[in-house]
């Protein structure tokens, strides 16, 4: 691993993994406790429309995805607040349309065939330094917002109705959360790709939730787990010449099953004879 660090791309990859893990730890914790994993999946896929838009009009696909993802997250947020009963259906519709728009726009872009695979599976080894400078302020922004409104986010996530009754603007906070989720997703897509975006957003927080006593602790532990998964995944992918994004997720997946098994053993010990 150490000899790999002499390469710029490897150093960039590690830094990108670090920045992504922190935002995933924070946002993923909020996504998991607020049960908006499906919306996150919808945003991640619909964001491909923005990639197509970027290619078609000749600006950064990263920027395109960021704009598109923010717009889609806003629409999904409003829909899920207004018509709760059909929200998941409408999210599914936007999910499909966003992807289709992206593919058609890339078809229409003359002489260029974007590597869809790299969008799906990520290209952490190809993260340019410029993108790192985009990620850093984004991480700072997420951290700042969550620190500033931590109590309110906890109240909203634990009991939305009560948060409303004490006068917290729950809808605004909810839309803000979705917006931050969208921006994080665009970042994570760079690293592990779209297909696996949900895994990095859910696995570390899911494991962390079981071993922590507050949302803040959950965010910190999830970030640390994310860093561990990305670094060990990167090392394995380098050592065995595997696709880096998929390796990172498989490492996280092993962590997930490991914690589930540990949990099962612990529970059996606490309550002997009880069938679960």
């Amino acid at each position: 691993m150490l000899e790999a660090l002499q390469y710029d791309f490897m150093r960039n990859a590690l830094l990108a993994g670090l920045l992504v893990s922190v935002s995933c730890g924070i946002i993923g914790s909020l996504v998991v406790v607020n049960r908006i994993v499906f919306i996150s999946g919808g945003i991640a896929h619909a964001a491909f429309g923005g990639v197509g838009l970027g290619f078609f009009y000749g600006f950064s696909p990263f920027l395109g995805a960021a704009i598109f993802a923010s717009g889609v997250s806003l629409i999904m947020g409003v829909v899920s607040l207004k018509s709760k009963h059909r929200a998941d259906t409408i999210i599914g519709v936007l999910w499909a349309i966003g992807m289709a728009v992206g593919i058609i726009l890339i078809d229409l872009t003359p002489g260029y065939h974007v590597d869809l695979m790299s969008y799906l599976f990520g290209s952490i080894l190809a993260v340019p330094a410029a993108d790192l400078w985009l990620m850093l302020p984004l991480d700072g922004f997420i951290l700042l917002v969550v620190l500033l409104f931590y109590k309110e986010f906890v109240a909203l996530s634990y009991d939305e109705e009560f948060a409303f009754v004490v006068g917290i603007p729950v809808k605004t906070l909810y839309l803000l959360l979705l917006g931050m989720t969208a921006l994080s997703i665009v970042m994570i897509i760079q690293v592990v790709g779209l297909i696996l975006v949900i895994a990095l957003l859910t696995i570390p927080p899911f494991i962390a939730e079981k071993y922590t006593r507050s949302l803040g602790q959950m965010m910190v532990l999830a970030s640390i787990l994310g860093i561990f998964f990305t670094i060990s995944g990167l090392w394995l992918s380098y050592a065995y010449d595997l696709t880096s994004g998929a390796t990172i997720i498989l490492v996280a997946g092993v962590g997930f099953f490991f914690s589930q098994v540990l949990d099962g053993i612990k529970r059996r010990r606490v309550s002997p004879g009880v069938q679960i």
Partner: protein
Amino acid sequence: MSQKTPAIEMNGVWFSYDKTPILEDISFTLKQGDFLAMIGPNGGGKTTLLKLLLGLLKPDKGTIKVLGEAPHRARRRVGYVPQNTDFNNTFPVSVMDVALMGRLTRSRMGKGLSSEDRPVVEEALHKVGMWELRNTPIGKLSGGQRQRVLIARALATKPEILFLDEPTAKVDPEVESNIYDFLKELNRQATIMTITHDVGVISRYVKSVACVNRTLIYHEEPRITHEMLDMAYECPVDLIAHGIPHRVLPHHGEE
């Protein structure tokens, strides 16, 4: 706010989910300082009525005033104890932190807790007998204990009017009378409106009764009238099953 402003004023309020009518033409006034028990069959609209008063739902027709204000404006002056305590049980949060949620307000968003918040919450947790468990994760408590924490959280808001949705459904009888004892004490400063199925509560603690089953009948005494029974015959089945119908039911001809 003068004593003359009613705690609750509902005027011709209609509410439906999709096309199914839940509440029809509800009008009633509750004065400040009252202690109202709301009874009625399941699905009769009790919780819906409570959510309208909290501003969580908006009526199709009619006007609602809470302490003289629109429900969403009165939010900072009301407390709320929800019925369901089994939500989000894996959520990592301690008893203390849940109770502290009662101290949040819009105007203090983005600011830290003040020095008076902890004593208020400590007092509330003592009242429900949950102070010793303040550092326990909320998911590790029993349903009844969780309900007591949610009551403490509502008390911590220092409400002028407190809404409770079956606050003692899961607690044992001893704790239940403790809770109602301090609700009675709280009633000296705050108006209380509680949904309950417990007839003992009605006879021992409350000042007035309302029966809700699509429409609402209000009775300014802690008694269940025959009118209420006729409207919602599921009520008395529950009540008489408790074996003390004579305490709450006046005999025929008495009305």
